[in-house]
């Protein structure tokens, strides 16, 4: 399945958002995720089914003004 993760193209076998995070070595409770511009809650990642062409954003705390 072809996905865009943080703006980069990835070819992965993950079926769910949680599997994608594990496959790409993302871990930690400080991460926030969105698929196709909508928030996917941490508790929903394991059941959230990904589809070909999905755009995933994985964000974490950063300095800000």
């Amino acid at each position, binding site marked *: 399945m072809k996905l865009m993760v943080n703006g980069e193209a990835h070819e992965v076998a993950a079926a769910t958002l949680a599997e994608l995070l594990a496959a790409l070595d993302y871990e930690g409770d400080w991460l926030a995720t969105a698929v196709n511009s909508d*928030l996917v*809650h941490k508790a929903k990642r394991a059941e959230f089914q990904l589809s070909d062409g999905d755009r995933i954003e994985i*964000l*974490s705390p*950063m300095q800000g*003004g």
Partner: protein
Amino acid sequence: MLELYGTELPSRLLLGTAQYPSPAILAEAVKASGTSVVTVSLRREMAGGRAGEKFWSLIRSLGVRILPNTAGCHSVKEAVTTAKMAREVFGTSWIKLEVIGNHDTLQPDVFGLVKAARILCEDGFDVFPYTTDDLVVAERLLEAGCKVLMPWCAPIGSALGPVNITALRSMRGHFPGVLLIVDAGLGRPSHAATVMELGFDAVLLNTAVARAADPVGMARAFGKAVDAGREAFSSGMLEPRDVAVPSTPTIGRAVFS
């Protein structure tokens, strides 16, 4: 004491966390400023990266409140989704709402701002909108549910200071009971003192401290200026006069001729 969305805060200075020479200097500057609130952001994390964790751990160790922002968002959808992601990560309903409308001036898109503010207020957020000094926009933001307004006094990072004192004075006068925080454009402690003397409730700044030669010293200076400006406002300042008025009593003056 300053009260924002039901939280009492000892300091009237809100401080940004970006652009410091090092995390250690950021931490020292936060302490030196006396601030009770720091702003933070969300950005893309690298695969396997732990940059976010390190930063988040540092911020939590400072013991101050977190005000996440939606910096860099140019659409209502981006800002709303970013706010929701921030609420999940930072565990707060506070959000500094930015919807940027112009790349050069980083001027807020006030139309998108009002729309996003309405969506987020209805969703239970405590919204701190980064806006202009436009009174009509301010009215719309209040109607949307905002209890705090954050007008700029000059473009973000410009260090120009209050470029339109008349507009700020008008805003303060027009909304006497609304919490007003000057956000963006402050360059010097005297700028902060000036807007506090006008009766603004607080200031939010970042670049003026972070990019100073000595951020810790500048943070301390801004903290003092904010306190001084507030105390001056509360103490009732003299209005300027066109003629001289002797300060030394004239009664009992010796006559030598």
